[in-house]
């Protein structure tokens, strides 16, 4: 699937809080538990700070999880994260696992292999959130996108297109550093821009996310209507 660095012409402008709120609940609508949903929302929103569209990255992950193509029933053995059921690894679930692994040894070299994952790009946000010194994500598909995350900066090489792919994550490899190549994204600047101007998301993808969110809402009934604030007494 194509995941462009910039959003499409048909776009909605949202606040960061709206993106976080709806992504978390959309993940619940796709079947993820609450703690996973919160991490997913944070890591997907992180893509906005490097000028990518969080909605276009999040929707296929939600679709894959809800449709059963990917799963969160994971197992980790000798640095390899795989799905127990032979399905694709769900990035929604794998993100927190990676975050935990990397945060346990924030200064040590660690290599993690992830079997075919539905939306590998989402793992970059998880690596960034782990607070380690440096991480490189290599996506083993197409042109082989490489993402370096370090010191609050992110470099993306090999184009921003990435389909489902196996991923290698190398944290704190000896001699690793953020390469001095364009485009180099500074997270704090991206975050500031998101807060000042909002986050642009593809309208169609956002509608898809809202569809998952709506699944978490309970249909209204006459009885449930009575459980809220205030009658129409006009006083």
């Amino acid at each position, binding site marked *: 699937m194509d995941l462009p660095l910039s959003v499409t012409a048909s776009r909605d402008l949202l606040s960061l809080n709206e993106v976080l709120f709806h992504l978390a609940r959309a993940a619940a609508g796709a079947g993820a538990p609450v703690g996973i949903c919160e991490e997913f929302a944070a890591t997907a929103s992180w893509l906005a700070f490097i000028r990518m569209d969080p909605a276009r990255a999040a929707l296929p992950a939600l679709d894959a999880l809800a449709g059963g193509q990917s799963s969160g029933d994971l*197992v980790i053995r000798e640095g390899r994260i795989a799905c127990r059921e032979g399905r694709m690894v769900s990035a929604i679930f794998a993100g927190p696992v990676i975050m*935990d692994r990397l945060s346990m040894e924030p200064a040590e070299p660690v290599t993690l292999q992830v079997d075919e994952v539905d939306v590998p790009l989402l793992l970059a946000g998880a690596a960034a959130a782990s607070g380690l010194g440096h991480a490189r994500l290599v996506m083993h598909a197409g042109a082989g996108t490489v993402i370096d995350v370090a010191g609050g900066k992110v470099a993306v090489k090999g184009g921003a297109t990435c389909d489902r792919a196996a991923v290698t994550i190398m944290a704190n490899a000896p001699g690793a550093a953020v390469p001095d190549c364009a485009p180099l994204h500074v997270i704090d600047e991206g975050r500031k821009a998101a807060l*000042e101007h909002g986050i642009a998301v593809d309208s169609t993808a956002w509608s898809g996310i809202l569809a998952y969110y709506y699944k978490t809402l309970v249909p209204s009934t006459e009885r449930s209507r009575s459980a809220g604030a205030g009658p129409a007494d006009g006083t």
Partner: protein
Amino acid sequence: MTAAEDVPQLRPPGEVMRLERMGASFPTRLSFMRQLVRRMIRERWRFERMRLDLDHNGTGVTLHAVHGRHRTYTLVGFSGSIDPRERTDRVIANVWDTTFSLFDGVPGAADIERLEANTPRQEAGRFRASELVLARANRSGRIFDHVVDSLAGGRQPCRDLLRDVGYLMRTTAVYGSGKFGCADRGRIAGREELRGPFQAELLAVYLIRWMSVDLVNHMARQRSGLKAAELSEDLARTLGIGNATGLGMAPFLVKHPLLINNWVMARENALLRVRKVERATPDTIAEFRELLDDARRHVAAWAVDDPEQSARISRLGDDLARLDTWCDDGLDGERPFDALWRLASRRFSLEGQEMVVALLLEHQGTLIDGLCESMSSGGLPALKAAMPLGDLINLIDDNYGWALAIDHAAPESRQRFWYYSQEKLEPRVGDRYTEPGADLEMAVAIGRDVAMLRAGLLDHDPRISVADFLVTAPEWRSTVRRVQHLAHLPYAEIRDNLLAADRRPVDILRFKLAFFGANGFDPKSDLWTRVTMYQGAPLPADITGGTEPQWIFPCP
């Protein structure tokens, strides 16, 4: 009494964070409205009525600006008058008398045009980061027309009626923090004047109060010209802004445990500091007794329909009478406020005890106002992935005894479930055994979840890490993270079962509204309450003039 018992201590969380006591909370000088008003006075904020473009029915556009030390904020109002039968406090309403946006700066013509197309639509509109708050309000069916008619007739409205109602308009929603495209909290949290909790939202409400007084004066003038009277400053000061609050505040408290801990910790530290005061000067005693008189008048005028709350108010009046008698000589000894507190905690009702907290804090600004700086917070830090499960179990045992003591299997312990309705996302409470939707319940059952987590952990090797555990049990991630980070924050958790059939959600609402600074709690059921905000607060002219009358216990 032993020597250890004689030293004032923080109140234990098992006492403070129970719903019954939370539902007896009163505003204090640390409350957020009070913080805002003190800042406005200290910094001599200036108020500017920039536009009052209204017809005789009060339909039109208003701009009310306030110039702070560094920035200007403008309340943009779109005013009209709806059919009284359509005036509902519910979130699910679709029309309102007046809608508002709090604009960051002074809006230009294009901004106003854009807001005119969106603000009246409220949740259906779209907003930008230049808008900090979205709100709406309805006119009081009981006094709005009476006030306009009186002023148009050249006379002041009935003081008793104004006192009974307490407001000209009642807000039914005040949205901030990025809702519907408005500015994220992160955009404004670094500003000195908005750093404290809910300062932007409460600034908007303060400006709505000012606008509501302008509205009645303007409508009266439109009708009667020079013959119209202007609402006296004395009466205007007695009017606040009404508010109806439902269940939405409850999940907020559960979701923001660090914030709640910081609010309560500030208040409890303030109480402790006051209790440690060695002696009260004659002036301090006189000030305290004067405030106590105001509190007694305030309570005497506090009338509600709810029989349970009425009984509590009656008991509160008795407590304050007893306190008044005690004060004849009780404040003369060592640690007088500690002695007073000990009297209250032994003899008074919960309402009486919590009002004593407000009384004790009120005149101790020098001692406690600095604590306001500690009342904000960020979110929960990241999970501590390397923690062994044995350590996690110990944290639960040390800090969640209240949760483990609940019989979560009993049907009545899990009777309620909280959910968001499809209807305008209104938070609601349902009966698990008779209503659909329990499979979509909100994650507010912290006690139940912690107890279930602990039971599940016993099946695992206590030496394995939390990270390993969560690979195969991701459903516990949120609870694990919560337990890890709240272990040393005593006031972070509501130590009660929110699912239990006999718990009153309205207690949570009162707790939060008291921290906001709201008064006049008027519970309409177990699920919602009315309150008044800024009643008795200084008017814009008072603020610019640098004066703050006593208004913690308004007694019009």
